[in-house]
């Protein structure tokens, strides 16, 4: 929560090593300038809905993409996904599942709940870096988000 200003990427990842590797990779490609790392699902939801600490971000600060791990302490990834996708304030935010699991039930469940993408973290670091860099580039540079400013305008 280094910044309550506009967040590009929200990374929800409990494993500090994975988080560091992802952040390093994104930073290396200049994609992590406005990255918010949440270590568990509860913090992520608190931030999105402004229910946690008073300095939580207001709702206008919708990340351009959420990178969500599935195995998370407190509230697990699928539950976080379900809450995000079932709330009309957040359901348009792209959620990319980034996980180690290539198990079918997980993949199915994620898509059923409305995940926008499902990415399996490769074990080999070269491949991992490659995947994360492309992922970041796609969602932050290629993908055109729904214009937030329209919504912002209504506030004024």
């Amino acid at each position: 929560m280094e910044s309550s200003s506009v967040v590009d990427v929200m990374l929800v990842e409990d494993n500090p090593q994975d988080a560091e590797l992802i952040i390093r990779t994104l930073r290396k490609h200049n994609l992590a300038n406005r990255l918010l790392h949440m270590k568990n699902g509860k913090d992520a939801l608190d931030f999105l809905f402004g229910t946690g600490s008073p300095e939580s971000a207001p709702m206008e600060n919708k990340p351009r993409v959420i990178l969500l791990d599935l195995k998370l302490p407190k509230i697990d990834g699928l539950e976080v996904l379900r809450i995000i996708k079932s709330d009309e304030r957040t359901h348009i935010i792209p959620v990319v599942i980034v996980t180690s699991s290539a198990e079918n039930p997980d993949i199915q469940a994620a898509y059923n709940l409305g995940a926008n993408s499902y990415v399996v973290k490769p074990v080999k670091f070269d491949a991992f870096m490659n995947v994360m860099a492309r992922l970041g580039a796609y969602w932050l540079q290629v993908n055109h988000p729904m214009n937030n400013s329209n919504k912002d305008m209504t506030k004024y």
Partner: protein
Amino acid sequence: MDGKQPSPTRIIHMRGSIRIAGIYLILGALWITFSDKLLAEIVSDKVQFAQISTYKGWGYVFITAWLLYLLIENHTAELAYNEKQLRLITNALPVLISYVDTDRRYRFSNKSYLDWFGEAVNGKSMEESLGKSAYQKISGHVDAVFAGRTVNFEADIPYKNGGTRFVNATYVPDKDTKGRVKGFFALVQDITERRQAQEEIRLWADAIEGCAQGISVVDPASNRILACNPAFANLHDYRVDELVGSPVLSLYAAAELGHVRRQFERADQIGYVRFEATKLRKDGSTFLTQKDVVSVRGDDGFILHRVVTTQDITERKQAEEEIRRLNEELEMRVSERTSQLEAANKELEAFTYSVSHDLRAPLRAIDGFTDILVEEYAPRLDEEGNRLCTVIRKESQRMGTLIDDLLAFSRLGRKEMRTEQIDMKELAEAVFRELYSDEDEKRIDFRIGDIPAVNGDAALIRQVWINLLSNAIKFTSRKKRATIEVGWMEHGSENVYFVRDDGAGFDMEYADKLFGVFQRLHDDKDFEGTGVGLAIAQRVVHRHGGRVWADGREGVGATFYFALPRI
């Protein structure tokens, strides 16, 4: 016809004869005594008297002759009539009736003889008429009747014509007043059919008597037992004579009487019913029976009796109960095992899930941070340090591959199968095209036969081809020119498919290890791999009810076979 004891009719006849003779005697005596005296009163002339007396004498003689004629005529007619009557009666009887004289010739025979022998026997000797063998059989009895005894016997007589018949014969001697035998009357009855019928009845009686199932015949009006066999009595611990005449319903458990009555009524309506009923023994103990009730109708349409077959089914019921119990137990055990299996499967899923999530992350960290180390701290590492980092990275990556393969293998066992008809030739060709590189194309001579289609899960069978063909490509990679052949053969109810290569081959001594998980026969530096491919192929084929095996020689080549049930 005993001369000493005249029959009553004979006595009546005799009295009539005596009376007539007496009247004649009196009239004759009166006539002789008084006719001349009366004539002398009327005629005085001696010459005329003598003349009239002569006429009177002649007249008397004529009248007497005329009377005699009338009497004899009358008697003969009566005799003829009597004989005719007798003939009518004897002819009407279905019995052979004859009279044989002392010459042993037939003097009289009724029509039955004609019917039997086809010719008249009167006047012929017995031997001639009956035939030699038949006569021999009866001559002893004939001797006996001529000795004055009445003879009765039953015997099989082999007649000259008409075959052997079983007869009942009675010979009655005909004696004159002095007791001399003048001949004999023979009464012979053919009882062959009667005896056959009796024998048949005897057979059936024996069958019913010896039958192990209880048989009883019940009077439908009174519901009393008319007859039953020993088996029926034994079932109830009674004697047969105790049961005959007793009410049949008293042998049923009181609680089932309504049911039993209804079943009997149904039997009377539709002819036959089968039902189960609890019956009582003499001591009151019960046993379970199966009843087959047949209601027999007479020609008039009324029920004559019910024939009931009774079978003790206590043991059968117990066996059925036992089977049912065993089945239940089995089902319970199966469901227990199933739930155990399901639990084990759940555990396995949880395990693979955990492996999938948790085992990879540390590996990625090892690989990732080593890479960062190499990249960012390269100047501070000497050559050996760099080499060690490379080893760390390579090994962690290899472990990652192992985990992936293991997960793939485990997933395979849990995947649901979708069976369809698979064009094996098309599939194998497509897989091969995907696997080979441009370089492989120049190097490998790929031959495929007309392999037949099979029923199976296309995705799984495809994996088998991938694993076998990629193995073949891999193990021929050291050769400049190689041949990979895909073919098939028939074996019983199976299609056997094979992939043959002339690559590195293997030592048959280790053939049984080929299909084990993580079993490898080659060094990694020669041919890379985790040793899961063939294990996966085997698992897929086993799930399809097939078999896999291999044949090879080190340095010569290898053939991998898999057999699947033919469509």
